[in-house]
């Protein structure tokens, strides 16, 4: 049991990173439009985040330096500041969407308009940030988010033609009625959703919060492999559910309840209740993750004391950044801006900012002055290099694709 609880950081990171508002919608959308033909992108994304989160966790365990420390140190104050502004903005967009997601999932059960529930959701998020111990937080929301496995069960219940699903997944093609640019837009959205920078901000800072040391490198590896693989499996299950129920009906997903609809069809009320609970936990977890990441990145850029491992009064600026982010996100959410649109833009924009975050991680993980004997092995460098090139291509393509496809709406 103790060993199992040791991987909850990875599980919460992955639940908050892989089945949050952005991914729930992006996965269901791609499933309903392209079947499983983009499932390969999720696999690529999982491998990518595994490679870089492992490095970031290892650097944090060995040096106690989290990712934004490295960004400032290796990119310098100017590029670091540009990255900070971009990451903070994306964090804020994502936080807005997640708080709305929490409100929507509660609103569905009690029949109240979600806009009215946003202040309550934001307050609860802030209360957890302010008072709940880091480990409790990651255990509670990480483990509760695991109920989303109901998506996997639903796929089995729906009794699909497994051969057909497998062939879709292994033969990616541009479906008729769709343009290459649209497919590319969604592929980048999926990759951006899988590799959002806030996951490594959170994961590496969480490793410091939990006082990992060189003795915990196995724990790091277990967290990364178990957590993110699980996140990837859930992502593909969501996609499969949408492709089995919504695609044949020509439904294109643009709201959160539509994501849960296939589970209701497959498993009835119990399934629906479980999936709504899971969505609540996942979006809540992601709200914590993005709010903390906002605090971590700012504090680490300026060198302020951060972390939930000290009293709030000793990390006052860090807590105020988080409080401010939650308030702004709640206010934006209350304008009833479509949270699904917000999340779509935030993940594609985050794809544009990826290299600035992952480059310093890869460099420091190779620096013997920092890492001693724990520098990257050949395998980590091989994959790290490939992914950095991929991320560069993606970051260049992201913004033009938003324009060409009008945000994937074409």
């Amino acid at each position, binding site marked *: 049991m103790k060993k199992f609880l040791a991987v909850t950081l990875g599980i919460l990171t992955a639940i908050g990173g892989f089945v949050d508002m952005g991914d729930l919608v992006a996965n269901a959308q791609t499933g309903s439009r392209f079947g499983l033909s983009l499932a390969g992108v999720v696999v690529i994304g999982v491998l990518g985040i595994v490679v870089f989160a492992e490095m970031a966790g290892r650097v944090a365990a060995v040096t106690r330096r989290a990712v934004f420390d490295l960004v400032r140190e290796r990119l310098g104050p*100017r*590029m670091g500041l*540009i990255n900070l502004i971009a990451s903070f903005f994306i964090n804020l967009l994502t936080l807005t969407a997640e708080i709305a997601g929490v409100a929507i999932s509660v*609103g*569905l*059960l*009690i*029949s109240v308009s979600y806009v009215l529930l946003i202040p309550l959701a934001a307050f609860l998020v802030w209360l957890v940030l302010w008072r709940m111990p880091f480990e409790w937080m990651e255990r509670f929301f990480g483990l509760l988010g695991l109920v989303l496995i109901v998506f996997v069960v639903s796929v089995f219940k729906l009794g699909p033609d497994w051969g057909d699903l497998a062939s879709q997944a292994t033969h990616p093609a541009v479906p*008729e*009625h*769709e*343009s290459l*640019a*649209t497919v590319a837009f969604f592929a980048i959205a999926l990759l951006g959703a899988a590799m959002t920078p806030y996951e490594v901000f959170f994961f590496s800072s969480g490793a410091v919060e939990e006082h990992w040391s060189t003795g915990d490198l196995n724990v790091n590896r277990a967290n990364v492999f178990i957590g993110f693989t699980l996140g990837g499996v859930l992502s593909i299950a969501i996609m499969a559910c949408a492709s089995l*129920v*919504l695609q044949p*009906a*020509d*439904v*294109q997903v*643009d*709201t959160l*309840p*539509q994501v*849960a*609809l296939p589970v*209701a*069809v497959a*498993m*009835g*009320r119990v399934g*629906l*209740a479980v999936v*709504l609970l899971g969505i609540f936990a996942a979006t809540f977890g992601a709200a914590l993750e993005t709010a903390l990441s906002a605090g971590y990145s700012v504090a680490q850029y300026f060198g302020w004391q951060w972390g939930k491992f000290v009293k709030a009064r000793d990390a006052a600026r860090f807590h105020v950044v988080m409080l401010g982010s939650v308030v702004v996100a709640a206010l934006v959410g209350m304008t009833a801006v479509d949270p699904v*649109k917000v999340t779509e*833009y935030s993940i594609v*924009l985050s794809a544009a900012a990826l290299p600035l975050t992952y480059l310093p991680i890869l460099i420091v993980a190779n620096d013997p002055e920092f890492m001693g004997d724990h520098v990257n092995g050949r395998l980590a460098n091989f994959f790290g290099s490939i992914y950095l090139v991929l991320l560069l291509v993606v970051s260049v393509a992201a*913004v033009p694709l*938003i*324009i*060409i*496809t*009008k*945000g994937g*709406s*074409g």
Partner: protein
Amino acid sequence: MRRSTLWSVVVPVVFVITGGCVTNPVGPVTTVDGYREKAAASIDVALGSVETVRLVGEAELEDKTFTSFTRQVVDDALGPMRTAEDTFETIAPPDDEARALQREVLDALVLSRRALVVMATALEEGDPNAIARAVAAIRPHADALRTLREKLGSRSP
């Protein structure tokens, strides 16, 4: 990086975000092909809404959802439908062929929206028979929209 370079990054990003939020912008259409594209996009939205409501309605009849959930899904579906209808209505058809198309598409949009409103009312009343009738009434509209969609051809980029 100098200040001007910083702005050259920030300004396009802000522009894209604000510009990109306006989807399916209303603009003059000068060719019948362009008009067909707009029609197809509107039908896509309507078809998605109608089918969503059919799916959730069928689930409701089999006691597979909560009424609060079903209502929300139906409400969510009505919004984009109205928008699609309004948007399409404001585009002036460029020629006679397009004008004929306009009538056909608008008819389909209006009728299917009405079917959804009937469904919403039935849910409000909570009468299972009325819900069953409303779901049954939705199916032909889905078929009609699908036929129309096939006629209009492939999706625009």
